[in-house]
């Protein structure tokens, strides 16, 4: 192949056939560098987002697992405060705070139910787990029949 053909399409820095060698201009170099940097930046951002996503999923799973255990624990004796656990809920460097809420549910007034189960009381047990920055929260809820019999004096019937 003729070397002249090769030099036809681009500017060689090497002097060929009397033509002055010429490098890239500053602008060209800057544009190329900017493009390269943008590409690298996108790549890094994607990597970071992906690893953050994986971490979020793991934290969510841990929180769900913790919430389920705490729900079983709290719903076992729904008339009492939850059992105390002195172990801190810190898993893989993240602190999880658990709050348990009890709420008495008044059943929908229903004559049949009222006749069949006059002392039916439900307790809603809800576990809320908070963790991380920015704060994330999940909650699980279950219902238990109240263990204690309702005395007519303390719970007036509707």
């Amino acid at each position, binding site marked *: 192949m003729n070397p002249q053909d090769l030099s036809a399409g681009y500017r060689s820095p*090497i002097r060929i056939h009397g033509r002055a060698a010429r490098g890239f201009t500053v602008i060209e170099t800057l544009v190329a560098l900017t493009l390269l940097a943008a590409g690298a930046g996108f790549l890094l951002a994607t990597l970071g987002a992906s690893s953050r996503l994986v971490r979020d999923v793991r934290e969510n799973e841990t929180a769900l697992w913790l919430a389920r255990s705490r729900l079983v624990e709290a719903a076992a004796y729904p008339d009492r405060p939850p059992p105390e656990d002195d172990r801190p809920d810190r*898993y893989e460097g993240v602190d999880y705070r658990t709050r348990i809420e009890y709420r008495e549910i008044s059943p929908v007034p229903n004559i049949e139910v009222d006749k069949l189960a006059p002392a039916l009381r439900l307790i809603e047990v809800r576990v809320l787990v908070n963790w991380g920055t920015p704060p994330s929260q999940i909650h699980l809820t279950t219902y238990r029949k109240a263990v204690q019999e309702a005395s007519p004096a303390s719970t007036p019937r509707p």
Partner: protein
Amino acid sequence: MNTRRGFTLIELLVAISLATIITLLGVSLMRTSINSSVGNEEALKQSQAVRDTQRLIEYAWSGRQSNGFDAGKTQLEFISSQTATGSFPLRFVCQSGEHNDFALWFYQVSPPGERTDGPAPAGEMLLAGLSLCKFGWLQAPPDDKAVAVWREEWPADRVPPAVMRLDLATSRGPLPPLIFSASGA
């Protein structure tokens, strides 16, 4: 006149060292990413194993019978109405392994007649590589005012607990407790 001019040695050295630094950065980034991906995969496998264990114990424990219950800090034996073993107990044991770690094993205990003859009952390893494996028992509140209390030991003569827990930890740190509730008395 020769106007061809290459790079000077200094320029070449600067360029090579810059390229080296950038390559090293790239390699370390790659290594970090590979490490974290390997760690994630291990954690995923572990959490799958824990989930399977959780289901197995939850299912069996939900049908715990009041007889045949025997428990310590690192082992648990009970009869469950949920399994086909009839009146022979299931046994979960935290066994210490070779590398100062623990593994959780599951046995279906054979009837007394078969126990002496054949080989030891075949166990199934549910979880391995644990740095902590411990059972705990929730003592029911004795009266209206009291709160349920977690116990590490359970006397043989007492009525078996309805709620139990399994505390686990791996080399990466503690895991949330697994807590199970039995519906039967």
